[in-house]
């Protein structure tokens, strides 16, 4: 008790240098995380989005973590400051936005958390954004480049994005979203046993998640009409827009695919084809062999199982 009080006093006192801020933050990181998590929990409670179970606790923890990460970086620009007050003010500001969290009770399942975790990561990471094309539709980097009609420089970046994602990005995103290895295996099992049911469920959840996170795009990035998409590809501009919007909007992706069908004859139309693990090096080759052997001609369950084993 006394120790706790002492800590709280220390965090409420003025920190005057960056070094002091870093040292104190490192010392009391667990307490800071608990405080941030407490704020997230209270927000969920007050907005009627709370239940006493592990998935809600995990959600609160994850948001506490994300907010604390921002505090640790932005606090360094705020010295001299009182750490507790600064943390509280950053969190209060975040929660005062309209719909700050992507909350839906259906998203609390392992599959929901996986999809929400990937998509929320895609908002802040271009690697994750590119990887969405693979995780949701099974497109390889080469196919992504062709569907998006990217130029040489952008294509090279896509390959780098996939590479970084494979090496570290995926692991980090999964770990942060709180989906355990056991849960991943469970989803894979479901996918193997009831592919259609899982696909329908994923389709429904992806729509929920994408609708929420598309709001974080600038206002001048809305869904385009068929004609506007056609112009954009014909006149060959706005790569960023294509990448961002098409990764976050399935309807537009299908629209663009149909528009460019003649050039994409060997690529199947964007269907939900969930992949839980990142695309491995030479993954498409092994995918090809699996397909040949599997005989269903659809890069679905079997191939994903096979790929996932190589990456586990």
């Amino acid at each position, binding site marked *: 008790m006394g120790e706790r009080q002492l800590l709280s006093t220390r965090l409420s006192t003025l920190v005057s240098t*960056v*070094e002091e801020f870093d040292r104190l933050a*490192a010392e009391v*990181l*667990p307490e800071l*995380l608990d405080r941030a998590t407490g704020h997230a929990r209270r927000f969920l409670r007050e907005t009627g989005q709370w239940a*006493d*179970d*592990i998935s809600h*606790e*995990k959600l609160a*923890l*994850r948001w506490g*973590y994300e907010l*604390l*990460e*921002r505090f*640790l*970086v*932005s606090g*360094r*620009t*705020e*010295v001299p400051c009182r750490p507790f007050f600064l943390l509280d*003010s*950053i969190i209060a*500001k975040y929660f005062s*936005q309209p719909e700050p969290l992507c909350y839906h009770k259906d998203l609390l399942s392992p599959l929901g958390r996986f999809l929400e975790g990937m998509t929320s*990561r895609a*908002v*802040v*990471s*271009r*690697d*994750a954004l590119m990887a969405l094309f693979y995780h949701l539709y099974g497109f390889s980097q080469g196919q992504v480049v062709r569907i998006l009609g990217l*130029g040489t420089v952008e294509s090279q*970046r896509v390959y*780098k*994005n996939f590479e*970084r994602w494979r090496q*570290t*990005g995926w692991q*980090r995103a999964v*770990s*942060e979203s*709180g989906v*355990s290895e056991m849960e991943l295996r469970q989803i894979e099992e479901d996918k193997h046993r009831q592919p259609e049911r899982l696909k329908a469920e994923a389709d429904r959840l992806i729509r929920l998640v994408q609708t929420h996170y598309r709001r*974080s*795009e*600038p206002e001048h990035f809305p869904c385009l009409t068929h004609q506007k998409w056609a112009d954009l590809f014909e006149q*060959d*501009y706005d790569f*960023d827009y294509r990448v*961002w919007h098409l990764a976050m909007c399935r309807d537009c992706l299908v629209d663009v695919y149909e528009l460019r069908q003649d050039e994409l004859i060997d690529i199947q139309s964007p269907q939900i084809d969930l992949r839980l693990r990142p695309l491995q090096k030479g993954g498409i080759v092994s995918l090809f062999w699996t397909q040949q052997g599997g005989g269903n001609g659809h890069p679905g369950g079997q191939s994903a199982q096979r790929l996932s084993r190589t990456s586990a």
Partner: protein
Amino acid sequence: MDIQEDSQLSAYRERLLEALRHPSRQAREDPGLLQVFVNHECIGTLDCSHADPTLVFASHERPIQTIEIRTEAGLLVGSFCAQDVGAKAVRFPVGRHAIEMSVHTRLDGGIIRMKYQAAKGWRHRLHSAVASFMGGLPGLDQREHAWTRALAVTQVVLALAVLFLVADRVADLAKSQATVVQVSPISIPSNTSQAISSEALALQEQKLVRLMQAQEAALKTLQTQQEEIVQVSRTVEAVAKAQQQLRSNLLTVQQRGADSKGVTPSKLNNLLLAELRNAAAERKQMHQQIQELTAGKEALSSALVALETRNRVLEQNRPPQQSAGPKLASGPDPEKPAVAKATEGAPPSPTAPAQVAEAPRANLSQPFTFWVSFQDGTSEASIEQLIQEIHGRKGQVSAGWYNVEVTLPQPQPPDGFMESLRKAKIVKAVTTSRNIPPGQ
């Protein structure tokens, strides 16, 4: 929750803590493309593979609350949370490199300027070496000998690259243990900081007599205008540079087209188009910058007019016999003096310090309350600014009427003050009805 769930949860908590402890924020290599988020929306990127990339962003309606800079992997390398309105300069380290950012936040928007500064590594040293080497080659015709030059450069580059690579690796190895990075608010050179000068002025305002204050403010306005002019000329320079770059890019593209037989006219055309598009985007950015500066200048000149008016009024109210220089009010003087009576038609007199009247002390002042209404469409910010200018204290607001209290020096009647206030562009009407808001 059962025990199993509890342990699952605490394992998750541990993982998150571990991620916070080791964010691998010390990426030493070129960070590639940095994404910039304002209020959690991605508003643009900084391509660090280019030389000195910059980004300017202006928000015209919404205040800037948060700014985040992330690598393509999503790593948070810079985060800024605006705590109040004003200007601030921040420096974020990105591995060995850094981002310098200045933020100006207002109630109704703001401006961000961001610049990535690569650490001067072997590439830079190599570049300088090559440049000086090339500078020493006499009589090379730029166009005709492009290939000769390229060959020469290649040879020098190869030779120097080996040397520098070796040297750099050794140096990096030595440094790799000490890459803990630090953020610190950068010290701002006085000639570029509006924030600091206005803060300093605010402090002085409390101590100086009112005429001195008006003069200081006018001086500040002039300074700011000078700064703006310097900034405009910098922008113009940048535009010129961009144009030059465009020309040289076009030349390069043409050169490439001429030199390689494999390039079809349509490919060449595409390349040219891409270059043109880049240039257009750059020009758009410049244009935006110039617009911002123009708007800023407009605001400044109207502020200057207001100051001049006030100065004139003050001059006219000067008691004829007093002739001390501007003095510091002795002791703490929380009462801010306000504009007093204005005499119609009196010519404005130049304000030489030797003739300046000594301001009345706070104990000679009287509070004066009045109601003021503003022209339709006047923004809250302009209203706040005006009230600040007259050192008023805002009371209740009712049906478009603002109740304001100012401190007028005795024994000046408030008529002159009211008269000068009525002349302000945004003011619709002023009245002294005390208790009931007029028009009710």
